[in-house]
């Protein structure tokens, strides 16, 4: 802990959308508590600072770093190592850092497929078929841009992580609670949770917080929500054939989506004790299907046209397999 003045705070974004930063700002006046208790030394979205400023800081001099985003390229990786060195407490903040999230879905595609989608789609003007060159020699000298890696990795696949704060993005009241906890720790009124703990979330599943009733009903068809004429407001969505990811997903959001009549898509990541998020959902979905006939089961399964996307929407990079084979065997 710094002896002169306030403890230091940093927040960084790697491969992410910026939603995590908005969620922090959404804590409202809580942000003033951060300012009152911390010296913000590095936070690219909020203030101007250079990487070399961070490099110049003594190792371990930042008390708390919230790191959001996955590790997609060389720059993300270098900054992850840098901030790990400089920080006492490194938090994987949000789904991308914890488990890969939506950017991690690109782990189903090869680098060439990704570049095609980015540089050759109908929305890009690229008649000369330009591609990023990671290394270019110019008369004035060599130019490097960060290398693009074949897959996206989670923060803890690259550096040691102290805590995980899940959610896409984390709910603001959960962030506020974590800020309160850290301030209490600073004042000696609380102690830190065990290293590796998931903070700012619950310890069970979205189903546990969901008010909908489960009657062990089984189904003959999966349907998308707009295809359902009348949704039963009380009954479990999965038991109405709506592919809800609640059974495998960690609680912490207050079951926002099923309460509003939409399926949980899993943004809080795997619940406690879930070895593989998709595997848990495959079990759950297989249990509600009312058929023992292989052909009929296949017909019902046709109604889940994108199983990998359904079962690993937020968790692919953090899953046991981490990526599809096309990302590797190019």
């Amino acid at each position, binding site marked *: 802990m710094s002896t002169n003045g306030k403890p230091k705070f940093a927040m960084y974004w790697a491969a992410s959308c910026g939603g995590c930063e908005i969620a922090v700002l959404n804590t409202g006046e809580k942000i003033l508590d951060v300012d009152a208790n911390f010296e913000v030394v590095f936070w690219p979205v909020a203030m101007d600072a250079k990487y070399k400023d961070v490099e110049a800081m003594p190792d371990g001099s930042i008390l708390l770093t919230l790191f959001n985003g996955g590790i997609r390229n060389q720059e993300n990786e270098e900054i992850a190592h840098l901030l790990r060195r400089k920080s006492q407490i490194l938090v994987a903040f949000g789904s991308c850092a914890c488990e890969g999230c939506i950017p991690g879905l690109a782990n189903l595609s090869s680098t060439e497929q990704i570049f095609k989608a980015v540089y050759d789609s109908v929305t890009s003007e690229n008649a000369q078929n330009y591609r990023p060159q990671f290394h270019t020699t110019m008369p004035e000298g060599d130019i490097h841009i960060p290398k693009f890696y074949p897959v996206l990795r989670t923060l803890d696949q690259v550096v040691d992580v102290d805590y995980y704060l899940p959610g896409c993005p984390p709910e603001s009241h959960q962030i506020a609670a974590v800020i309160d906890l850290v301030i209490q720790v600073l004042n000696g009124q609380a102690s830190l949770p065990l290293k590796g703990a998931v903070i700012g979330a619950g310890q069970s599943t979205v189903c546990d917080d969901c008010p909908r009733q489960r009657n062990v009903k089984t189904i003959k068809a999966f349907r998308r929500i707009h295809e359902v004429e009348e949704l039963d407001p009380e009954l479990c969505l999965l038991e109405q054939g709506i592919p809800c990811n609640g059974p495998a997903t960690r609680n912490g959001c207050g079951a926002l989506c099923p309460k509003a009549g939409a399926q949980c898509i899993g943004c809080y990541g795997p619940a406690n004790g879930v070895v593989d998020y998709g595997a848990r959902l495959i079990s759950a979905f297989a249990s509600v299907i009312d058929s*023992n006939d292989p052909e009929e089961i296949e017909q019902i399964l046709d109604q889940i046209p994108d199983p990998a996307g359904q079962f690993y929407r937020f968790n692919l990079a953090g899953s046991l397999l981490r990526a599809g084979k096309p990302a590797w065997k190019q």
Partner: protein
Amino acid sequence: MSEQFEPILVGFTCNWCSYRAADLAGTARVKYPPNIRLVRLMCSGRLDPAFVIKAFAEGADGVLITGCHPGECHYLEQNYKALRRYLLLRRTLEQMGVEPERLKLVWASAAEGVKLAHEISTMVEEVRALGPLDWPRWWNENGFHAVVEEQAQEVTA
């Protein structure tokens, strides 16, 4: 000089049927290739899809799931549950680049030692033809950058 690729298969067997079938094959001296590692479960319904995914993630080239014939599960309908899990898992894995031939479901009663041995031999040859899956290579400690470099060389070579 390339040696013949020996695939590694993990086989999940049910205590009441396929595990005994494998045992019977052994006592009757019916031969099947040593490429398969059998794991005994109490019932195919115990098969958590995570077992299969973990097997692939840790280096299996193929996974064989076995259970009692339909209608003969000792825990009533659990083998149907295994069937539904298997069909859904196979679709998911296929999207991730795991060929469907690498995951199989076979029903085998305790008396069907010869049938099980035959299924194992067939699957070993099918997976051999596909070649190694080699999943962990990409994720070994420090392996990531080695593989990235290797691929970069392949591209420029």
